């Protein structure tokens, strides 16, 4: 994070014209893939991410099955064409770490104990990456879980806050992430008031961190509305389809 590029202009606006506490444009859709038990798609800025859920289903290989709850697995993966330089399809160390933290962000929301000896597999595919893919990936995976009918304590919604050119900002894009002073990705369960993913890199005082955390939670609450709306339209669509069949 060198901060040589000017990321906040004279009017206090960001490189893409947003105000500091403004989210990027967001589009979500639920139930986009026919094979998966649940699926969803998100566009957040230029991020384009798909998530699919398979399960609860038989665990393979079997010896991994847990006697008292479902095994939750998560794979976060980037398409070779999702970034500037073509990425090898083999999972990088970064992708392996993010798979772990996203799994741990979603796990507290799921009633895993209802499905012993099964697995619930979450697959997140980043088709285009523009900063904040772990957060958008978490948000869309929560939708796919809901679409799969997996019972959940709450939705999980994620958003980053951070600091660029000395200003605390919400929902960093790629260049703000790379050139800014700090990035704080947060996953939040709004009804439970709990944080299930938290990372940070950069340099912040404790007070700045506290403000960033609160800013990120505010962002999460806004995105949560999009999630609920996306689930509602999916439900309406299904209802219409069923009614059409019954006609």
């Amino acid at each position: 994070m060198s901060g040589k590029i000017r990321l906040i202009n004279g009017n206090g606006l960001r490189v893409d014209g947003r105000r500091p506490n403004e989210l990027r444009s967001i589009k979500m859709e639920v139930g986009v893939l026919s094979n998966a038990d649940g699926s969803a798609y998100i566009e957040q800025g230029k991020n384009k991410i798909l998530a699919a859920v398979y399960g609860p289903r038989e665990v393979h290989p079997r010896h991994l099955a847990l006697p008292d709850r479902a095994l939750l697995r998560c794979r976060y993966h980037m398409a070779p064409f999702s970034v500037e330089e073509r990425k090898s399809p083999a999972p990088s160390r970064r992708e392996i770490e993010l798979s772990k933290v996203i799994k741990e962000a979603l796990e507290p929301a799921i009633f895993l104990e209802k499905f012993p000896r099964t697995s619930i597999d979450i697959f997140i595919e980043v088709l285009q990456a523009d900063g904040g893919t772990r957060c958008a990936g978490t948000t869309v995976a929560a939708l796919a879980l809901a679409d799969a009918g997996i019972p959940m304590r709450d939705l999980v919604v994620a958003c980053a806050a951070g600091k660029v050119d000395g200003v605390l900002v919400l929902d960093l894009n790629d260049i703000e992430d790379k050139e800014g002073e700090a990035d704080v990705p947060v996953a939040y369960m709004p009804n439970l008031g709990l944080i299930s993913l938290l990372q940070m890199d950069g340099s912040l005082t404790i007070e700045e961190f506290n403000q960033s955390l609160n800013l990120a939670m505010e962002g999460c609450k806004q995105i949560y509305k999009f999630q609920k709306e996306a689930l509602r339209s999916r439900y309406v669509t299904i209802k219409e389809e069923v009614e059409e069949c019954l006609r």
Partner: protein
Amino acid sequence: MSSIMVSRIRQKQIAQMVASGKRLDGRGLKDYRPIKVETGIIEKAEGSSRALLGKTEVVVGVKVEIGDPFLDRPDEGVFTVNSEFVPLASPEFEAGPPSEESIELARVVDRGIRESKAIDLEKLCLIPGKKVYVIFIDIYVLNHDGNLIDASSLASLAALLNTKIPVYVVEENEVKKTNDYIPLPIKNLPISITLANISDKLIVDPWLEEEEAMSARLTITFDKDNRISAIQKGGTGALTPQQIMEAAYMAKEKAEELRKMLVKT
């Protein structure tokens, strides 16, 4: 009833319908499912597309880099086709190194493009023997409902037609990127048509359950002059020479239809 028995009964049902000239999803034997092709969907890729064949969905991204030519083709650019069966596309797909099906798919698409000379590789040389364009065609299967080959071939061609390559200038045996982009030079339009043999009848564009019921599969790729560029038989059954020629003529007809449709979009 075990799932194996269920799938047997289903396969029998499909076979009986095909025998009487019908298909479970209401299509005629020579009908494709609805086809939809979008391009430019991945702004960060130099070219991209998304093809839907019924519920089968494939995204292709094209990335362009600079690299070394092959030793035996010093004056030509290079392209590679790679395919990922990502596990969100099907309960049968697993994470890990590419399966043999995925490798076959990529190689069949590759052969269609290569043998029809679809990409004008001679125009992709910057410094002979040293620097050429390298075109990565990445096929990403998002939902597998059968006939991945045709969906992937179509998406790949659409993505190539959509590809812009950055212009480089050569200065003192080094290449320097400019801000200009030109279209990737394309000189042919290979179209793959896949047929399946069920109950000794040929059907086009098998969907997933038909693929499970078929004894053999035949993919024939035609170029813009109606010449065959590539063929691939798949599946554990066999075909008569008569069936093969019947398939070839049927495929030629369908290829013309699809090419027209693609050029329109």
